[in-house]
C-alpha cells in the first residue's frame, strides 16, 4: 500500500495554512545534530515482495497443525471453528480501540460483557475482568490482588511447584520490587500437602494449578477452607485449563478466591506463543482489588440497555500510582475470539471437546504404558496431559521422532528442563486434534525408538 495519501498540491496547501515553507520546519525544535539520522534499514519492499519473503519465512517453520503433535506445556493445538477467525477479522472489531466512548463502542462492550459472563459460568466464579495478557501474567496479577486485599501488609506468597514454571517465573519478575517472600517451589519435589502446610498468618495467597503442569487434577474440595483457616483469610488462587472446565467441576464450585489461566485453548492459534489470553475471575467481595477493565450494564437517557466500562477508579488513568495495576491495553481481540468460540461450541460442544481430550489422552497413556521401557507415572487423575518416564533423554527421543522416524512427529515437553529430578520424563499432551492414527503412529515411533535403544542407541546424521 501507499502509506501516506497526500498529493504535492495538498502538502503545499497544508503548509501554507500552517504558515511554514517546508515540512522540515515543523521539526526545528529537535536538536539539529540529531535531526534526520541515516538509518540504513533494508530497502522498502512492495506488497508483492514482502508477501513472498514472508511466505518463505513461514514455510521455514514446521506447522504443528500439519504433523502429529504431542507438545503442550501451556500452549495447545486445538480446533477453532471457522466462525472465530471470521468474526475477529472484521474491521469493526479489529480496528477499534478501548471503548472509551460507549455510545459508539457497544459491539466491543457487549462482547466483553458476554465474555465476562462466560468466564464466570465456566469457572464458577462471580466476577471476571476483560482479560490479562496471558495465563502467566494473570497468575502474577492474582498475587498482586491478594497483596492488595491485605493492603500490602502481608508479604508471603506460597506457590506450588506444580504450577507452570513460566508462570512461577513471571510472578517473581513482576513482584521483584515488592519485597516478598515466595515459598513452595523452592523445593520442586514438594507434594500439595507439604505446600499447603507452608500457609500461615503472614501469607497473602496460595497459588495452585489444576489440572496442574503435569496434567493432574487436584482435589480442591475443602482446600479453600483449610487455606483460609491456616492463613487467617489468606486467598486461594487456582490456575486452570478452560477446556477442562467443559467436563470437570470448576474451581469456583469450591471455596476458591481467584481462578485464572491461559485462554489460548479457546479458539486461539499457537502463533509461536502469542497473542494469547489471560482469563481472570474472582469473588464479588474482592471486586475493588481486581485489576483490568470491567464492563457493566448501564442504561441511557431513554432507558435502553447498554454497556460501559465501569468501576474505573481502580485503574491507572484515574488513580495513577494508587491503581490496582498498570494494565491498560489488554487482549481485546483474543477475548472476542474466546467469546465466539464459547458461543458457537456452547454448552454441549465444549463438553464434547473436553471429553474428546480426556478419552484420547487416556487412550494414548494406556498405549504408551504397554511399552516395556516407557511408563506413565501420574498417580492422580489427569485431563489431557500426562507424564511419561522414558528410557533415554527426552531430547534424543524427540530428535528421533522429528528426524529419524519416517513421518515427522513433534514429541512432548522435556520436563528435565525445569525439574532436575525429572530427567528423562516427557510431558505428553493429547487433544481432539490427535486422531487415533496419530496416537498409534506416536506409540509405534516410541516403540521403534525403544528398539533402537536396545540395539545400541540412536543414529543422528
Amino acid at each position, binding site marked *: 500500500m501507499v*502509506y*501516506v*495519501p*497526500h498529493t504535492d498540491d495538498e502538502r503545499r496547501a*497544508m503548509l501554507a495554512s*500552517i504558515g*511554514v515553507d517546508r*515540512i522540515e520546519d515543523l521539526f526545528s*525544535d529537535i*536538536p539539529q545534530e*540529531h535531526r534526520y539520522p541515516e538509518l540504513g*534499514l*533494508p530497502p*522498502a*519492499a512492495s506488497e508483492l515482495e514482502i508477501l513472498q519473503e*514472508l511466505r518463505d519465512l*513461514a514455510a*521455514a*517453520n*514446521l506447522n504443528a497443525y*500439519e504433523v502429529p503433535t504431542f*507438545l503442550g506445556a*501451556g500452549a495447545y493445538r486445538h480446533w477453532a471453528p471457522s466462525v472465530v477467525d471470521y*468474526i475477529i477479522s472484521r474491521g*469493526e472489531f*479489529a*480496528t*477499534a*480501540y478501548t471503548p472509551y*466512548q460507549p*455510545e459508539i463502542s457497544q459491539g466491543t462492550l457487549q462482547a466483553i460483557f*458476554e465474555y465476562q459472563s462466560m468466564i464466570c*459460568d465456566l469457572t464458577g466464579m462471580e466476577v471476571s475482568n*476483560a482479560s490479562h495478557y496471558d495465563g*502467566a501474567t494473570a497468575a502474577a496479577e492474582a498475587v498482586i490482588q491478594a497483596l492488595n486485599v491485605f493492603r500490602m501488609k502481608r508479604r508471603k506468597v506460597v506457590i506450588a511447584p506444580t504450577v*507452570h514454571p513460566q508462570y512461577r517465573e*513471571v510472578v517473581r519478575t513482576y513482584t*521483584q520490587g515488592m519485597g516478598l517472600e515466595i515459598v513452595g517451589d523452592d523445593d520442586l519435589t514438594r507434594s500439595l500437602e507439604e505446600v499447603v502446610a507452608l500457609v500461615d498468618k503472614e501469607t497473602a495467597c496460595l497459588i495452585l494449578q489444576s489440572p496442574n503442569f503435569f496434567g493432574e*487434577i487436584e482435589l480442591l474440595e475443602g482446600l479453600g477452607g483449610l487455606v483460609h483457616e491456616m492463613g487467617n483469610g489468606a486467598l486461594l488462587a487456582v490456575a486452570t485449563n478452560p477446556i477442562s472446565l467443559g*467436563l470437570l467441576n470448576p474451581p469456583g464450585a469450591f471455596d476458591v478466591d481467584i481462578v485464572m489461566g491461559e485462554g489460548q485453548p479457546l479458539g486461539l*492459534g499457537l*502463533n*509461536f*506463543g502469542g*497473542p494469547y489470553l489471560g482469563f481472570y475471575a474472582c469473588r464479588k467481595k474482592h471486586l475493588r482489588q481486581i485489576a483490568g477493565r*470491567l464492563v457493566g450494564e*448501564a442504561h441511557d437517557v431513554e432507558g435502553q440497555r447498554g454497556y460501559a466500562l465501569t468501576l474505573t477508579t481502580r485503574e491507572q*488513568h*484515574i*488513580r495513577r500510582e494508587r491503581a490496582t495495576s*498498570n494494565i491498560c*491495553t489488554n487482549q481485546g481481540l483474543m477475548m472476542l475470539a474466546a467469546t465466539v468460540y464459547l458461543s458457537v*461450541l*456452547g*454448552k454441549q460442544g*465444549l463438553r464434547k471437546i473436553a471429553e*474428546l481430550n480426556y478419552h484420547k489422552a487416556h487412550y494414548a497413556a494406556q498405549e504408551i504404558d504397554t511399552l516395556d521401557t516407557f511408563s506413565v507415572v501420574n498417580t492422580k*487423575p489427569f485431563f489431557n496431559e500426562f507424564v511419561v518416564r522414558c528410557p533415554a533423554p527426552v531430547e534424543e527421543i524427540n530428535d528421533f521422532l522429528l528426524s529419524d522416524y519416517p513421518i515427522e512427529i513433534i514429541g512432548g515437553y522435556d520436563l528435565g528442563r525445569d525439574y532436575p529430578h525429572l530427567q528423562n520424563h516427557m510431558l505428553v499432551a493429547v487433544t*481432539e486434534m490427535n486422531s487415533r492414527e496419530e*496416537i498409534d503412529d506416536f506409540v509405534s515411533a516410541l516403540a521403534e525408538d525403544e528398539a533402537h535403544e536396545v540395539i545400541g542407541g540412536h543414529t543422528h546424521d
Partner: protein
Amino acid sequence: MTEPLIYELSVPGREGVKPPQLDVPPAELPAELLRDDLPLPEVSEIDTVRHFVRLSQLNYAIDKGMYPLGSCTMKYNPKVNEVAARMPGFLGAHPLQNPETVQGALYLMYHLQEALKTITGFAGVTLQPAAGAHGELTGVLIMRKYHLDRGDTKRDIILVPDSAHGTNPATTSMSGLNVVEIPSDERGNVDIEALKTQVCDRVVGIMITNPNTLGLFEEQIEEVTQLIHGCGGLVYGDGANLNALVGVMRPADVGIDVMHFNLHKTFSTPHGGGGPGSGPVGVAEHLVEFLPGPIATLVGATDEGYPVFDLHKPEKSIGRLKAFWGHFGVLVRAYTYIRMLGDAGLRGVAEHAVLNANYLLSRVRDVYPLPYDRICKHEFVVEGKFENAPGIRALDIAKRLIDYGVHPPTNYFPLIVHEALMIEPTETESKRSLDAYAEILLKIAAEAQAEPELLHGAPHNSPVRRLDEVTAARNPVLRYEHEF
C-alpha cells in the same frame, strides 16, 4: 437499536458446530470430578455469526472513519499485515518446538529486533512485553536492577512529569518505587528548575514522554537527560508518541537509556478493541544484560551459509515478563510494516503525522482555545470550552462529534489542561478527511453558542445515547444472570 445478549438467543438443545466422533475406546470418566451443569449459551452457527456481525456494526472503527484519539495513534491498519500474520507457518508454530523447526519465526524476530534498534539507536531490544504498560514495567524493573547490581541500594524514586500517562506512576508503584511528580513550565516542557530541586542520589530515574502528552517536543530534552545522568539516574522514554519521531530522531541519541515502543501505535498493528498490543523495549549498551529473555539471537550459520537463530536469556536478566516470547502475531504485522516502509517511508510517516496535526490545528485554532501555542508534533491539545458558551464542556463537544459520524478525540487528558481535547489525526488521513473533521469542529463551536442543548443532549443518533455510568458503577451488573 440494541442487540440481545447471546444468552438471550439460547434455546435448550441447539448446537452450533459438530466436534468429531470419538475414534478411540472411551476411558472411564471420574464421576466425582465432573461438573453437573455448564450454563453456556446454546445457539446455532448462524445465530452466532449474525449476533457478532450485528454487534460489530454497533462499533466505530478506523475502517469506518477518522479516529483521532490522542495518544493512541489510530492510524490505518494495512490489510497486508493480516495476510502476513495468518500464514499457516506462523499461525501453526508451537512456542516450545525445537528451535531448528522454527527458524523462520526466529529470523523474523531477530530482524525486527535489529530494525527497532536501527530506528531508535538502542543497543538491545526485547520483544517480550505484551503492551505499552507491560513495556514500562520491563523498563522500570531494568532500571531498578541496574542500580542494585552496582550495589547502589538507596535509590527509590522515579520522577514523573505531571503531563504523564497514568501508566507511568502506576508502573512505578508496581515496581516498589515511589513517584515524585515534576510540574510542567509555561511552554509545556518539563520545568527544569523544578527538576533541579529533585535530582539526588535517591533517584532511580525519570520517565519522560517525548513528544509529551501535550503533543509538544521537550525542548530541553538533552538538559533533562544530563541532569538525570548527573545524579546517577537513568532516563526512561515512554514511546507512546514515537510516531512523531520515526526516521526523524533516534531517542537514544538524546540520552534516553531505555524505552518501550507500542507496535500497535507506531507500527500499524490493529488495536483490536483494546488489544492485543505489543510493547518491545530498547535499551542502551549498559542495560543490555538486564533485558528480559529469551531474546532471538544469531548463533551461527549452516554449512550452506544460512543463518541459524536461537533464543537466549541475558546473563543478569530481570526475568521473563510473560510466558513464551512475546506477541508473535503482532510482531509479524510490525515487521511487515517496517519492511514495506524502509528509511524514507518511516521518515514520511513522522513527517506527515506532524504535518496533519499542525494543519488540523491551523484550521481550528482561532475557535478552540490553545493553552500552549507552539508548533505541535503528532497531536495537539485544545480546550473544549468557549467564552460565549459557558455551559459547554469538552464532554459535550466529544459527544456531539459522534452525531457527525466521526470519533471524538481523547478528552480530559492530559490532566494539566482543563477540558482537554487531545487530537491525533495520524499520517494516514488525507487533507480531505482533515478538512471534514475541521468543519465539524467549527460547526459544533457555532452550535455551542446557538443551540447548546444540541450538545448537552448529544449524541442523538448513536446506537445508544449517553449512559448513566454513575448508577452503573454504584450497582455493578457485570455478568448475565441466569434464571434457574
